């Protein structure tokens, strides 16, 4: 159990920002597309929003942009 907990902590330390950008920023990009530009609802646009969040996450990790979290 302790080993799992340690692995989980290490994973979040290294990849927490990427997960946060994928889910948090992906949801926000999706809402912006839907609310401001009146598009969305189509599955591929949802994917696009979350893909943008994921890419932002990788970029933020590389640049150490902790402020995005």
């Amino acid at each position, binding site marked *: 159990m302790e080993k799992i907990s340690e692995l989980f902590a290490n994973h*979040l330390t290294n990849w*927490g920002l990427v*997960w*946060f950008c994928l*889910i*948090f920023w992906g*949801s*926000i990009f*999706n*809402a*912006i597309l839907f*609310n401001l530009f009146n598009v969305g609802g189509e599955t591929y646009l949802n994917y696009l929003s979350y893909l943008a969040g994921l890419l932002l996450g990788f970029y933020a990790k590389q640049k*150490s*942009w*902790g*402020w*995005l*979290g």
Partner: protein
Amino acid sequence: MGLVGMKQEFSKNHNDLSINEERLVARTFMGRIEWEMIVIGLGQFIIWLGIWSMVLTGSLSLWVGFILSTISTAFAYLPSHAGQHGHLSGKHKNLKWLNAFVGQISLIPLAQSHHILKATHMKHHANTNNPERDPDYFHTHVDHWWQAAINVHGQTNGGDKRLQNMVETFVEEDQNFKADIERGTVFSLAFFFGQMIVAIYFPLETLLLWWLPRKLVTSYLGIIFSYEPHKILPQGRYKDTRFWVNGIPRFFNHSMQIHVMHHMYPNICHFDEPKAIEALKPFMIARDIPGAEDLPDKISYKLLSFK
């Protein structure tokens, strides 16, 4: 009258300016429960929840909610800070739980852990302006206020490698620090997952009522609470913090213009600092505290420079 003249004048009126006398005077302002901070801590959280509720039910626009949430969140840190120093329980040992309880509730709009902030803040007090050991150093010793506004985010989100190294050192050498970090990590994880879950269901509301206000307020805290009182100052009990003015009445700066008092005696409650400064003014001038010579006799809500 020059500084030397002022010191001589004070020496005539106050014969004993020893450290023991200074401590005796300071002690008269310590020990009470700072109920004002309990009211502010719980009050601002209830207001923040109210803003969320009104926006979600459509009785308040999201943009008005954003402005109100930012103002409300600006009051989130000080109650935790009071709890970090034990002001919420005062001298009552059976009420010590209030410090972490109110402190953590108050920090929900900032999505921060009370225990982690307490651990690093205590190190800030013990090592103020030390480049190797002061966690606030990286946003207090910069060239411009906007650098403080940006760098402070490295402290709250672990983006600054120098700070991470500092924290790792403290964890290795200080068991109390390590325990606080471990306790606080649970809350940090809760905020991490909590924000993601809330963003799935209420994305724009989470952005404008929670994420953006806490980022703006964190920058405000970095400038007003850290950078201005400590900027480019050396180490030393009477040298590391200064009195300052910025053209705005101190009440709108959370009274951080008189932050010196807090660094001299952290056990004095925030709301008692003006009276304590009035009583300790001769000692402050005698010890050459930066800005003390310009202090008015009475610390009002006006600018400190108004005599």
